């Protein structure tokens, strides 16, 4: 019943869209005919408005029919390559009571999904595809993975995927139509408004349908994997999202601009997930209240509502599922997952040098620090009119030029701030940059190395030198009455020349 109701709504709205568009075109043509019959001049004048409007509406109608081919993301795995993964999917499809997908693709995203290539408003299915996010394989248990995949197969079973194509193409066509209207034209602006109202209604309705589909698929998932596994998988998704974001931003690409990538990737993600320093952070996220309702245009219901509905079902699993890590279902997982990840990186990635994780962290942090010190070095060079170097910075401070070392575009908050306030702000900026420059000098002299922990925080491992006193020495160097002797002695003791100037690559 529900299925046919959804079909009726979606098709009716699409038909309504065609009717609306055709009625407009008809009206415009009638207007033009009437104008021409009244006078040729009026016909030409009105035609200047009407013809582009008709063209825009017709163009939108044509593009509504045009199907954008599904972009194939990820790496396809055959049953021969990954027999146990395929076996799980087949077993789940049997339980759901639907045909298994024709293709499984592993993608580098915290997501899973199904799609169908369809024709004739979703009546004819050409090919079923299932997408499985590699981070999910890495982080979920087999039981939780079963819950996630059962949910997706539930969409097939409920024939949601058949309509999904219609809903999405319908929505895209409407948006294209609105975009195609020329806002300079009064008439077209009016049409755009009309279609915008229709589009909003359509998206609201289709989102509401999608939300109901999600609840229905959750129920399928709970029936097969049990309420507790389904709810825990949903909760885990947010944790994986945060961990994945941290992995991509602070680890995978940490040395990207320096020209480096890790030798192997997904083993790093596994290490990150197991890192004790991250446990409390991830546990906090797991305990946090789920996200808020994101409004009527969101295609998914709020996670909290989904979890509540799943737990209310209190369904027991149809059969026992394994509690072992899902990654054990995958043969030789890291190279496969790494390939899926490389596909998401831009073409440049092939040219990056590949190093182990420890080296990568060091290089990434060093490069960032190197970039952070450039400004101060150049400022000192300008102030003293000589080559940029650590010694130049210290000499400029000794010459009482602190204020001149600060950037021009970072000022005290008060626009009429006096000289002292400008110096105080300069002190804040210069001391931070100078500290980095001094530490960089130690690193480049091989007295210290950066260590990036899995939280993404940098630590300095120094051997033979007490670098904890650097902040105090820097503070003395930038004080109202500057004293750089402490810093100079420390540097000289480490054999660092006064003309030290960091190179792009150490």
């Amino acid at each position, binding site marked *: 019943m529900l299925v046919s109701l959804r079909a009726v709504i979606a098709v009716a709205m699409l038909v309504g869209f065609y009717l609306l568009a055709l009625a407009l075109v008809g009206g415009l043509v009638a207007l033009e005919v009437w104008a021409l019959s009244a006078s040729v001049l009026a016909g030409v004048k009105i035609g200047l408005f009407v013809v582009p409007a008709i063209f825009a509406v017709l163009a939108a109608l044509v593009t509504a029919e045009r199907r954008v081919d599904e972009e194939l993301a990820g790496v396809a795995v055959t049953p021969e390559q990954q027999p146990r993964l395929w076996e799980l999917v087949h077993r789940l499809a049997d339980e759901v009571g639907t045909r298994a997908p024709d293709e499984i693709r592993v993608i580098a995203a915290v997501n899973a999904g199904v799609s169908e290539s369809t024709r004739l408003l979703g009546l004819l299915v050409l090919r079923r595809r299932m997408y499985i996010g590699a981070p999910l394989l890495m982080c979920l248990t087999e039981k939780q993975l079963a819950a996630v995949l059962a949910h997706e197969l539930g969409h097939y079973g409920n024939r949601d995927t058949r309509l999904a194509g219609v809903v999405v193409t319908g929505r895209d066509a409407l948006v294209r139509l609105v975009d195609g209207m020329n806002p300079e034209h009064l008439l077209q602006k009016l049409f755009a408004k009309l279609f915008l109202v229709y589009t909003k209604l359509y998206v609201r309705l289709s989102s509401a349908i999608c939300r109901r589909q999600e609840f229905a698929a959750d129920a399928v998932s709970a029936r097969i994997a049990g309420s507790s596994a389904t709810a825990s998988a949903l909760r885990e998704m947010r944790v994986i999202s945060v961990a994945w974001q941290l992995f991509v931003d602070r680890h995978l690409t940490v040395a990207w601009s320096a020209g480096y990538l890790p030798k192997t990737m997904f083993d790093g993600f596994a290490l990150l997930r197991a890192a004790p320093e991250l446990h409390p952070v991830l546990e906090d996220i797991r305990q946090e209240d789920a996200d808020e309702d994101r409004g009527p245009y969101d295609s998914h219901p709020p996670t909290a509502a989904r979890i509540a509905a799943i737990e209310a079902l209190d369904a027991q699993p149809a059969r026992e599922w394994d509690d072992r890590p899902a990654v054990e279902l995958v043969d030789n997982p890291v190279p496969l997952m790494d390939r899926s990840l490389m596909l998401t990186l831009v073409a440049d990635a092939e040219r990056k040098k590949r190093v182990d994780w420890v080296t990568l962290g060091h290089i990434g942090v060093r490069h960032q620090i190197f970039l952070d010190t450039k400004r101060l070095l150049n400022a000192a060079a300008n102030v003293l009119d000589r080559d940029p170097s650590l010694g130049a910075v210290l000499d400029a401070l000794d010459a009482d030029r602190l204020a001149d070392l600060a950037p021009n575009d*970072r000022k*005290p*908050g*008060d*626009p*009429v*701030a*006096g*000289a*002292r*306030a400008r110096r*105080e*702000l300069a*002190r*804040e*900026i210069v001391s*931070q940059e100078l500290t980095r420059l001094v530490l960089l000098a130690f690193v480049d002299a091989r007295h210290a190395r950066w260590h990036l922990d899995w939280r993404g925080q940098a630590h300095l491992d120094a051997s033979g030198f007490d670098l904890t006193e650097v902040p105090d020495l820097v503070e003395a160097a930038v004080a109202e009455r500057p004293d750089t002797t402490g810093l100079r002695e420390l540097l000289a003791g480490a054999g660092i020349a006064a003309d030290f100037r960091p190179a792009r690559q150490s």
Partner: protein
Amino acid sequence: MLSFLNPKNLVILRRVRQEARRLGVAPAALPSDVVAALMLPQLDMAKWGLVPNSEVSAERYVDPSLQVVVTAAREGNWEPAAGRLEETWGDWEARVLVVRALAEVAVQDDTWLRAWQAARPDDPGHAVVQAQTLVIVAWQVRGAQRAVNTTGEQFAGFHRVLVEARSAALTAAAEAPEDPTPWSIHVNLARGLSYHHEDFAAVWDQLIARDPLHHVGHLHALQYWCAKWAGSHDLMTDFATRVAATSPRLAVLPLIAAFEHDDELWSSPSVLTALDVVQARLASEDSNTILTRNERGWVIHTLLPNKRFDEAVVQFRALGPHADGEPWSMHEKPRLWFLKSRVDACKGARQRV
């Protein structure tokens, strides 16, 4: 498009050209607040006993005898400053004003202050000026923007300099144990350092023990009790109402609290009572300091929404050309706000001179 044909605009254009000629600059080079002031209705202010618009200035006015001291300090001569500050001993309100004026100089250049310190290490004067200077510097580093528009380094500098200011205030307090001024400065910086209520109370007790009616100290405390700092609307209003009842000198606080409150409280009974008390006090006030000008400004700012224009004109008369006080100074264009309020007061007033 045809606005330049509007006779009213032609009149304003002519005024702009005349003003530009008077100042010897191109019309386009006139500051925007000067142009805006020329767009106000041009009333003959003399009819209400007020100085003409052109004489009004938002520049800080310092009385001539103090100005001599300030100028000397700016030129590196600290001895007049030391002498003047010493004279204020016991007159704590005057002391605050002298400290403030000297600190404004030190914010730009403190060479003279260092020289003073070197020459007379035991003089309690330079320590209190130093503490006040650091508080001003800290707030300049931060600026008056909301937290989201303040950068990390501005916050960090603000905090660091305030911590220095605190130790300077404690030093100053130790060197002159009877002087409430260092404690008034401490009350001010306590807000910036987000003191807990108990810690604030300890500082407050020190101030009150030395001068129970310390005007500036009470103004700082009112800010501390604001919702945007460490208090709430209720705590602020309660504080203002309570202290206003203790002395007419503090009756201005409910008027300021009404400004800081989100709701319009101009006509609430406690504000109207305080308004009458401040006006009565100001009627017999013959000194003209930034504190009395602030009070008059707050009185005007409360009178206008209550449509008591005649009384507002009386206060404008007393202010004369000085638009340097509150609340005008809190506006981006103080002079323009002052002039606009003055025009409103005159238009509503019945009496003329």
